[in-house]
């Protein structure tokens, strides 16, 4: 342990860490505590009367077995599929001489930038059993009544969620693959081992922590996923825990927040456990990062004549998985109803869906609200994140360590569950049904997205730069403002972009907290989808993608301008 002396140079901010800690604790703990209280309460607005009836209700329901089973299949399937897909893509982009590596790498993380609900809808338009375009095309081609693939199923959900979560897996596996010293495999070959033996005994065991970390992180994400289960699970009556909660609070006449809380708490416990496992695994994988020597170079496997086979497969995969659904979405936004491309479709193409969406008062309000939440929320969130990241990286005390854990705790918070917690917290306050409620909820839930890029930005600034400012007589906050802040502009910009685009598309938290007057884009899209207004879904979705692109461009421009002025 370092001596306490460490605190001294930061004496200017004596209350800095404790007050931050308190703020973050309030933000993250409030929904959890309220969820707990709520689960033992009669219903919203009936605080104080302790009851375990909700638990008895929920856990004696025979349907829950089916739902738990679905959930299990859904998350395990998704995690396996994503990890496998990411392993293959990482291997090809990192370890082989496949052409078009750059494009492949970029495309692999694209699903992260497109709002999940839109990609899910895109897939649904292609593969729904009644008029999914690829299903229609298949029927026309073979004059059959068969369905090529029914996306309203567990398999469909695993497939779409797997594609959507692949970037997370890819971002964990490909750096591990890149830092893998190929001489570890070569040493096995010269020891007399075959390729297969080497893969089993050396390659996979060394990559195991990364593979397991990616697996558990995808488990967390798919457990929290709402967009996919809602858009393609519910139409097929395939319910998982998150849609089950949604059914309890939003469908039918007897909404019951007590029961929702009782279910939500279980999800929260599962999720927190997975995150705990994940963090253990990532520290284990750091242990495996051994000294790789000066002469270390990642040996590239020559694909030879298989080069073009590999490119073909990867190209087809990425085109099919990512480009096709987006194109389908745009195409649908121009048509009055779903139909295959052809002369008839061509004659009907118009902007009428866009027009009607842009003249619909509720959609317009949702648009305004989402932009407001994106811009204001990201600005507030990033400001808070700067202070937190600074405390985590620079002021290393026991409390700042706890602060780090507390911040990343919200990684394990499924939006819909945490939304219910906030619902209990806000229901009797003036915040209820305001944009302020959404703002607080967003920031609390997505805090890690701001803190992560900023901690890595702080790590890259040498501490002596700050110390020389203090020596020159600047105060603690003066140094923060005049030295540190200008240096972390790139980190700030990427954190802002990340948060703003998360907020702009936010669905699972909003689905609980948004009320008439505080509609947001994603919820409005979900409502259109529930009424099968596919043209409007597509048009509003495209508008959402356009707005987030514009925001990203503006933020990047401001960022470059700022750093240019500095030089």
């Amino acid at each position: 342990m370092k001596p306490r002396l460490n605190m001294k140079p930061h004496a200017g901010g004596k209350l800095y860490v404790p007050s931050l800690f308190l703020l973050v604790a309030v933000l993250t703990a409030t929904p959890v505590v309220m969820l707990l209280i709520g689960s033992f309460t009669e219903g919203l607005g009936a605080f104080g009367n302790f009851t375990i009836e909700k638990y008895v209700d929920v856990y004696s329901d025979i349907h829950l077995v089916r739902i738990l089973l679905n959930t299990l299949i859904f998350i395990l399937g998704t995690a396996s599929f994503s990890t496998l897909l990411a392993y293959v893509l990482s291997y090809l982009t990192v370890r082989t001489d496949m052409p078009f590596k750059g494009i492949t790498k970029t495309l692999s993380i694209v699903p992260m930038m497109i709002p999940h609900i839109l990609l899910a809808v895109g897939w649904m338009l292609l593969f729904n059993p009644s008029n999914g375009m690829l299903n229609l095309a298949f029927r026309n081609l073979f004059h059959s009544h068969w369905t090529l693939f029914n996306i309203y199923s567990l398999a469909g959900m695993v497939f779409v969620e797997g594609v959507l979560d692949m970037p997370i897996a890819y971002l964990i596996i490909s750096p591990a693959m890149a830092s893998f010293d190929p001489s570890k495999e070569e040493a096995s070959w010269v020891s007399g081992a075959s390729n297969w033996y080497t893969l089993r005994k050396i390659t996979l065991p060394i990559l195991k922590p990364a593979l397991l970390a990616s697996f558990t992180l995808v488990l967390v994400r798919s457990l929290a996923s709402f967009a996919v289960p809602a858009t393609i699970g519910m139409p097929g009556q395939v319910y998982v825990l998150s849609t089950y909660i949604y059914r309890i609070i939003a469908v039918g006449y007897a909404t019951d927040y007590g029961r929702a809380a009782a279910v939500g708490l279980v999800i929260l416990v599962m999720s927190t456990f997975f995150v705990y496992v994940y963090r253990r695994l990532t520290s284990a994988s750091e242990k495996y990062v051994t000294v790789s020597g000066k002469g270390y170079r990642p040996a590239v496997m020559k694909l030879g004549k298989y080069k073009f086979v590999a490119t073909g497969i990867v190209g087809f995969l990425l085109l099919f998985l990512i480009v096709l659904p987006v194109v389908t979405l745009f195409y649908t936004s121009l048509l009055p109803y779903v139909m295959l491309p052809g002369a008839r479709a061509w004659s009907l193409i118009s902007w009428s869906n866009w027009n009607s969406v842009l003249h619909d008062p509720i959609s317009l309000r949702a648009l305004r609200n989402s932009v407001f939440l994106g811009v204001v929320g990201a600005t507030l969130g990033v400001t808070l994140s700067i202070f937190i990241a600074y405390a985590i990286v620079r002021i290393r005390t026991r409390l700042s360590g706890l602060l780090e854990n507390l911040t990343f705790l919200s990684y394990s918070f499924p939006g819909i569950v945490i939304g219910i917690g906030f619902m209990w917290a806000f229901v009797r306050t003036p915040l209820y049904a305001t944009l302020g409620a959404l703002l607080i909820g967003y920031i609390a839930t997505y805090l890690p997205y701001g803190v992560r890029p900023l901690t890595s930005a702080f790590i890259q600034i040498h501490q002596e730069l700050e110390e020389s400012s203090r020596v020159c007589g600047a105060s603690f906050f003066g140094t923060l403002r005049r030295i540190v802040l200008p240096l972390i502009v790139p980190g700030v910009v990427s954190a802002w972009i990340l948060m703003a685009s998360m907020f702009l598309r936010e669905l699972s938290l909003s689905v609980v907290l948004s009320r008439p007057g505080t509609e947001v884009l994603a919820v409005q899209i979900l409502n259109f989808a529930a009424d099968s207004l596919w043209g409007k879904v597509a048009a509003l979705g495209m508008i959402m993608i356009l707005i987030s692109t514009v925001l990203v461009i503006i933020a990047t421009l401001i960022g470059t301008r700022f750093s240019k002025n500095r030089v």
Partner: protein
Amino acid sequence: MNKQMRATTTTDLATGTGIKVDGLTKTFRLQKSIVQALDNLTLVAPYKKVLTLLGPSGCGKTTLLRSIAGLEVPDTGEIQIGDKLVFSSDRKVFLPPNKRNISMVFQSYAIWPHMTVFSNVAYPLQVQKVAKGEIKRRVAETLAQVQLDGFEQRPATKLSGGQQQRVALARALVARPRVLLFDEPLSNLDAKLREEARKELRGFLTELGISAIYVTHDRLEALTISDVIAVMNAGKIVEIGTPKGIYYNASAKFVVSFLGDVNLVEGEIIRRHDGLTFVQSPLGEIACKASPTLPVGTRGTLCIRPEVFEIATDAPNEGQNLLHCTVDQLLFTGEAYEAEVTIGDTQLSVTLSSFTDVRQEDTISLFADPERCRFIGEQ
């Protein structure tokens, strides 16, 4: 001394069955340029001797080693280990590394982080399906050899750099391979440790009497560890010989300057007498060694290493190879003086004993032993 130095031709080295490399060529495509890593290279590595491939980075030495290991597939040529043909482009033979009965110590050590020291070392035996008891015995024996006994259950990640290097060596030795390959195994150690490891490794290799090929760009490592040094440049073997022979009697200017500091002075052969060659140069007439095939009148370069010079107390051999020069600069390095001296318009680097009583701007007389001066004719 003289006879020993001459015993450096390839035919003398070919006794026993070592490794034969014949006409090996390998080109790489790096983005748009084509790199010739191995250029019709032929080499015979002697049986149960340590051969070092020495050369600057990019000379193809690692490519050659990896081709012998089977980790790289050459374009054309043949490689034979012992009496076994492991690669032949004509006969379409390519044995994968696991079928070549070799072992290799890697630059990064390539210690498997998910295993203990024991499992790392036992791996080659497990692959061969050796009986459990036998594995245990041989691993213990090998670990004792590298002074790591008692470390069996230590996780591989909990080892220092020097210990990792020993584990890598133990893993390479345990299966008693036909050939041991080393790819710059000491370059990741810090200077002090490297010196120790070098001495130890030399002791080991002499004791084991195993055929080994050792790749390095460090001349000191090459000189101390090898029985034979093959100096490489631009995908070719430039010269091959014993460490001492190649250090003093190399016949290529590249080899002379690569192996250490050297003074290069232009000159011309004026006569031969009593096994010595006399060269007219800006230093005056210098007696030296030269290839007997060079006729009188050949122009070329005189190569004299800084440590060859010594302060002349009296005038040996009637003033032969005696140089009168002025000291321009004197650097005290602890074990010696590094001096820059001038004679006429020519500047020379000279290493003198640190006990020598010289001062800057002194005029001193230096003697250079003719047996250790070398003349290389122009190509």
